[in-house]
């Protein structure tokens, strides 16, 4: 009920997916930031 009834080890695939998500966020942040500011005055 409280979310910790059974011990459930973190699978490697879970770590990988989170890592991919954060790496993608970092790359996109750079791209979107540049695009957003480069096109502001257009």
């Amino acid at each position, binding site marked *: 009920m409280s979310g910790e009834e059974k011990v459930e080890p973190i699978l490697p695939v879970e770590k990988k*997916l989170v890592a991919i998500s954060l790496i993608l966020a970092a790359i996109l942040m750079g791209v*979107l930031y540049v695009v957003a500011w480069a096109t502001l005055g257009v």
Partner: protein
Amino acid sequence: MASGKGIDWSSLYKKEDWWALWLGLLIFFIGLLYIAGVNTFGWFPKIGIWVDPAVSVTPASKDYAWLHPILSYVILYVVTVVLLSIAVVAMKWNLKRFIAGYTFIYIITMITYWFGHWAYIAETDPKKVEQLGFSLRMTGEAGLLFALLAGLIISNFFRGFANFLRDAAKPELYIKIAIVLLGAKLGIDVVRLPVGLLANYVLRGVAAIVEAYLIYWGLAYIIARKWGLTREWAAPLASGISICGVSAAIATAAVIRARPHVPAVIASLVVVFAAVELVILPFVAAIFLAHQPLVAGAWMGLAIKTDGAAAASGAIVDALMVGWYPEYAPLKGWILNTTVLTKLFIDIFIGVWAFILAVVWVYWIERRPGEKVRKLEIWFRFPKFVLGFMATMIILAAMTGAAIAAAGADVAAQREAVKPYREAQSLIDDFRKFFFAMTFTSIGLITDFGTLKREGFGKIIAIYLILLFGVIIWIGFAISWLFFHDVHHYLIKALAS
């Protein structure tokens, strides 16, 4: 809604989401009749900032100057209760209980909203403030906070009465109707903006949301897992706290096949803490982000986890900043627009995110052989009221644009041509403000702090609290800053020209 082989069209009249769209559009089109010379909403009770309560409320239009304010309120009650009852019957809610609850919520909201217009609380004009000697300068939107407070007091101290009202305390329905009507407000303003600036503004909203999804979810999920939550709890909690509260938690729980009580517990946490944020964050933003109004607006959209509380916070920040800092007067409505922009994109992407999670769970985490994920789920999760918001914005922008074009190059002629459109929009906007106020009271009414005392949820509550106040709101702030700092200079310049 997806069912079996295709689409179940009964969603069009069974779902709250669709009804928000229908009712919003109906009010919008009836309001537009003003342009054709039919003053349909001129009777609306308009509250001025008052010192003498006897002259505080007048009909919105001079055509109805003969109407007693009490009668205006009665008409508003009858019109809204009839419109909402159509939806209530279609959705098979309990009509009697709805009308009974709605009547009290209406009265409570109207009194608190009216009280918020007291000059000592609301007046912003420096000359009038000097005459009064003192004012909190919160604009009439202060009434929204009193509405919230009234709801919270009833919910937490008069539980029997709160339960009686609960059938009509529907913040998500009210705020969705308000957002559909907000599109009209945006529509009349966007024609004044250069297309490039508008596109850039929208791009920033999308960018902020893409970043929020990717960073929030991953971090919230892995932290919750490291602190001992199972996948069944961690995934809906990550969605609830990082995306759009209740609907995201429910969508994720469905995707990973969590037990029914999991999204229910997380949804109640989301609702309670969104109300806590609503009371605190708008003031923090207005005080500490005085030089960055759009960052403040975007931050409310990214940090507050229900549609109702987020839009409500945006409205308060908008009112506070325009009231406290006169240089932001041209931005009136745009701080709220920024909150709604980010929140709408969050809502739009819930379907996409639910689809991605379904793919990840089916193919990688749980590896369910033979199971396929249908792309139709994206449409199923798409918030339909967003279509109403876009429709009212595009229709009014197109009509206003055409009127300006027809008026020729003369600026005075253009202003004259736009006048009926602006007045129609102003009457429609009265309804938008009304549904906003109803949202605040309803949020208060469904926020029961007693929920937090339930045994066994201590750890979940602790993790939610730490994630929300220690991680989510700060990352939301950083993203808002990255994409919205200094943008207000460009917007003010365009709006003032």
